[in-house]
């Protein structure tokens, strides 16, 4: 009689918080359930409290992996961007979050990993490795990477420079990049405030871009970042009209 082959999950011998710090995280029923419930509640709250409106959903690719990029002005941004996806897809959508901030204390790890499903992004010591992880993530069909290429929240409500990382991830690949502009988040919850205000949020989703024809070089990466910033900024001009 052949013996059975057991395949323990890779994180079976880790404590729960350690499990959440891993990336990629092993699927966990409790985490999936918690995340689904949290998103239903937060979507409801964003609709009521912040009168969230989403325009341009038809621009989202259906089954392929893609990248969502947006301006970054508050802690509401990631959740708001995830709100444009169906609940069934949020477990495969990963907002990149600074590991030096979102993965430091137990409360932040629990929130970042369970609710936001964040990917810890090392923006200080080893950003190259994190970018490589992003690339790998997008190789699996159906994954969504949520990126804020400014790298930090705006201090004055304007859109800052886009870092070239997004270009390094997408240059030479067929992965579509969907630029978005989120209006009202800065007014609702600027950096330094404790609690969000009931300011209206408007999320505009632009048409997807592809950078397949470009080789992965520093210059191209900067060019891609600049052109995406321009796309986001033009969405801003459209919505401001």
């Amino acid at each position, binding site marked *: 009689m052949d013996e059975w082959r057991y395949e323990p999950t890779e994180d079976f*011998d880790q404590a729960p918080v350690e499990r959440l710090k891993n990336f990629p995280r092993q699927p966990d029923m409790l985490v999936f359930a918690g995340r689904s419930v949290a998103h239903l509640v937060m979507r409801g709250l964003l609709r009521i409290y912040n009168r969230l409106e989403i325009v341009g959903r038809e621009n989202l690719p259906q089954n392929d992996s893609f990248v969502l990029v947006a301006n970054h002005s508050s802690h509401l941004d990631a959740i708001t961007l995830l709100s444009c996806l169906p609940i069934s897809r949020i477990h495969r959508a990963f907002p990149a979050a600074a590991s030096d901030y979102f993965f430091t204390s137990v409360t932040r790890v629990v929130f970042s990993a369970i609710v936001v499903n964040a990917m810890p992004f090392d923006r200080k010591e080893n950003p190259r490795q994190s970018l490589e992880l992003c690339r790998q993530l997008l190789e699996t069909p159906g994954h969504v990477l949520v990126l804020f290429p400014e790298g930090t929240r705006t201090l004055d409500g304007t859109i800052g420079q886009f870092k070239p990382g997004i270009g390094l991830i997408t240059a030479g690949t067929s992965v579509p990049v969907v630029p978005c502009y989120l209006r009202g988040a800065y007014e609702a919850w600027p950096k330094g405030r404790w609690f969000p205000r009931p300011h209206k949020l408007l999320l505009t989703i632009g048409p997807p871009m592809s950078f397949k024809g470009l080789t992965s070089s520093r210059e191209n990466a900067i060019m891609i970042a600049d052109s995406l910033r321009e796309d986001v900024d033009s969405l801003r001009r459209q919505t401001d009209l």
Partner: protein
Amino acid sequence: MMSSSGFESPTFRAYLFFLAGLLIVAGALLVLLRFGFKRNVDHAWKAYRGWLIMIPLVFAALFLGRIASVIFFTLVAFAAFTEFARATGLYRDWGMTGIVLLGIAAVGVVSMIDDPLTGVDGWYGMLMALPVFVVAAILLIPILRDRAEGQLQRIALAILGFIYIGWMFGHLAFLVNAKNAYGYLLFLLFAVPLNDIAAFTFVRIFGNRKLRPHISPNKTWAGSLGALAVSMALPWCLRFSFPEFGTRELILSGLIVGIGGQLGDLSISVIKRDIGIKDMGALIEGHGGVLDRVDSLIYVAPLFFHMTRYFHGL
């Protein structure tokens, strides 16, 4: 029968004060060893910290009454089964895992509700019938999926997971419905871990003939017999827990805890050895996983349950 507040029961108060005292003495002893005699007590300290969390949790659940206790034991069973599922790989199959978790929840529910025919607390008949329904549901999954390949392993793991970790351990939760719930539960929750500790301590003191070298190389016959001796004496020392017990029941309780506890430990060791892992999880620092902590209790609880039910009813 459990009262609305644990404090009303003299048995509960006795165990509470005794264990609080024990924790204080053990803590003081560790401090003395560490700072007075400069001994390395890191390992013992970790285990002690684990107890410092687990003991108050158990008392809080029992203090809050019947429903809270059932919920507590059900959550422990959830955690223990999830560890088993992760370690064996069954967790990759969410259908099977989900059915077993539902089955464990059902064990909790039947422990809470009244028997529809007699109106007494806890639906005993359904507790005994549950394996039929859960096994039927587990077998249904591959049929619904129209898949055969590799399914026997999943079915077998799911059934073992439910019967052993969910249902047999669930007997402990059902004990909340006993007339002498505090006595039985507190005795088991105290005596079974004490049996583990006794086995561990006797190994350290003497003996080197291995008990089961291929399953658990650290256990020796001396440790095992020493633990059995402690467990045989314990029901007499804690006789106030079950005044209705005669000599026969006291001897049986000692045997069930002393032998059953060690068999429970070895049973989980067999599983761990076969998989090739050391601990089932890492939830309780210094103790490993939940399943590593309750392994002996799983084996003992149903045996004790049916022994006492046979002689005294619930």
